[in-house]
């Protein structure tokens, strides 16, 4: 029993860091509180290194509540590093309110929840992990307490969140009633002897899956995303946009591959439809947006659509593609939102027009933004291209050419709004000549994400090999 705790040391470390941050907050003098940010970042990086030491392990621990496999570990490392970037972005924003303690405690709790989700193999653990991820996020979305927009963002996120939590739970209760167990692997064993066309089972499964698709903001459960992204303070938006989606995808993967492998034939219909709808809705609705955060929200929805293709395909290659996509997606979005934060310090309305003339006002930021937008578009030699390539290739390989065609067609649509921002930056004369100062913390995040995007795009072999390592405990392949 005691030996099993070695495997959850990263989780324990994050919990300890969160507790330390909250208690240090009481004792630190007001002007020293930004120290808490660096404590949190150190904790996140240490946990990432400790997790990296577990790569290659393949065990089921704590009475089969959690599994340690390379899929979970790689996603955990990506979550931890992305969260440390998001933590860095918030330092400037928190200078005014000086609420470092609360903010980083919430951020670390949410990260702990995501780590639990990625490694869970029991519906109880999945549910508790998702709740631990979401509840701090509701508070963080409303972190600018005197800003009515931020409050509204929190309320919308919260109401839709609890509604889907209730629906997910009801679905889980039906699955429990049909199978008599909550363990994902045991559910699969029990279902081998059950009539798969039972409507109650189908309702339960659909409810659970739809609850998880809410977390990744896939159509038709995407309504919260644009409003929450726009209303929440931008550093929080960066976090919500980049990190929790990985946990949502991890939960879906565990469910699809471990608990319901019998349904593989039906996932094509369900996830293929969801992917198509999500890609089209995200891309079409991104075009008329005037607010950059709203535009990035819809572009994020479209990206979820591309990634969902891999769940429709649901084989080993598709899973590698999904992990690769998550890495690229987190890098691109954190960088883009970091630039939005930097520009938003000069013109706080966050309109796309505010980027006018950025090419002359701040050539470095404009160049970085161009690279990140091209990567989101899927331009060759960027991470976004390799990610889309891997996912579409896995679809073609399994014979779902139509999914790949829809994906490519959608990338072409997305050209319109991504290039629109680039056009603003280089072709439109600036409204103000005010230069855009780049604080060190934000500059570091922009630099890291641009470097990661380029390195993955130019030398993809290493990352593809890393993604190919991905395997699941108890999966059907």
């Amino acid at each position, binding site marked *: 029993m005691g030996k099993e705790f070695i495997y959850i040391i990263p989780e324990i470390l994050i919990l300890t860091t969160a507790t330390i941050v909250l208690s240090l907050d009481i004792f630190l003098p007001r002007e020293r509180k930004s120290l808490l940010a660096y404590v949190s970042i150190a904790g996140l990086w240490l946990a990432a290194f400790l997790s990296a030491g577990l790569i290659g392990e393949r065990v089921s621990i704590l009475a089969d509540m959690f599994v340690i496999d390379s899929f979970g570990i790689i996603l955990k490392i990506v979550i931890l590093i992305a969260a440390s970037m998001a933590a860095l972005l918030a330092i400037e924003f928190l200078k005014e309110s000086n609420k470092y303690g609360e903010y980083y405690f919430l951020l670390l709790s949410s990260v702990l929840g995501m780590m639990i989700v990625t490694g869970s193999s029991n519906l109880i653990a999945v549910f508790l992990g998702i709740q631990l991820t979401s*509840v701090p996020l509701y508070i963080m979305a409303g972190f600018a307490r005197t800003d009515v927009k931020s*409050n*509204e963002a929190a309320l919308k996120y919260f109401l839709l969140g609890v509604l889907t939590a209730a629906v997910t739970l009801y679905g889980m209760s039906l699955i429990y009633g049909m199978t008599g167990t909550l363990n994902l692997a045991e559910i699969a064993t029990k279902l081998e002897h059950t009539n798969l066309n039972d409507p109650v089972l189908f309702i339960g499964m659909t409810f659970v899956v739809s609850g998880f698709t809410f977390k990744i903001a896939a159509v038709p459960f995407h309504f919260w995303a644009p409003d929450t992204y726009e209303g929440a303070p931008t550093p929080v938006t960066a976090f919500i946009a980049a990190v929790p989606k990985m946990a949502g995808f991890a939960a879906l993967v565990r469910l699809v591959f471990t608990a319901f492998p019998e349904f593989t034939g039906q996932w094509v219909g369900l996830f293929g439809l969801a992917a198509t709808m999500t890609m089209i809705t995200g891309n079409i609705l991104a075009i008329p947006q005037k607010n950059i955060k709203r535009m990035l929200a819809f572009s994020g929805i479209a990206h979820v659509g591309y990634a969902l293709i891999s769940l429709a395909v649901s084989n080993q290659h598709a899973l590698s593609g999904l992990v690769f996509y998550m890495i690229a997606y987190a890098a691109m979005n954190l960088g883009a939102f970091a630039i939005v934060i930097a520009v938003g310090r000069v013109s706080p309305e966050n309109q796309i027009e505010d980027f006018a003339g950025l090419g002359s006002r701040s050539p470095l930021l404009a160049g970085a933004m161009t690279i990140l937008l091209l990567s989101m578009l899927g331009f060759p030699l960027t991470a976004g291209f390799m990610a889309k390539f891997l996912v579409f290739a896995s679809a073609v390989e399994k014979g779902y050419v139509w999914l790949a065609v829809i994906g490519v067609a959608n990338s072409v649509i997305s050209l319109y709004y991504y290039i629109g921002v680039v056009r603003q930056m280089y072709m439109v004369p600036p409204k103000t000549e005010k230069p855009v100062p780049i604080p060190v913390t934000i500059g570091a995040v922009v630099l890291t994400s641009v470097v990661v995007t380029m390195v993955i795009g130019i030398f993809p072999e290493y990352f593809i090999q890393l993604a190919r390592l991905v395997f699941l405990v108890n999966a059907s392949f």
Partner: protein
Amino acid sequence: MIPLNYFVIFSAILFSIGMYGVLARRNAILLLLSVELMLNAVNVNFVAFSRYITPHTIVGLMYTIFAMASGAAEIGVGLAIIVTIYRGKQTLNVDEIDMLKW
């Protein structure tokens, strides 16, 4: 003994009433109450299934306790959000809380 079906049907009705409330009500607090109804429907389901389908394990009962705890945490956060929004807008009608639209 009361048949299991009765519990399941009761819980389905409770869930549907909650769902109707969420879709039809416009006051944020009433929305929260409706969600509570849905969560309680889940608890009824879990306790009933635990008693009838797996009488020798307590997994279902355990899940009910976790669900109640996390539900309470959610409602606590929700009420805090509702209080702040009432301070700013003087209303709890979700149709009037509509600054974020395009």
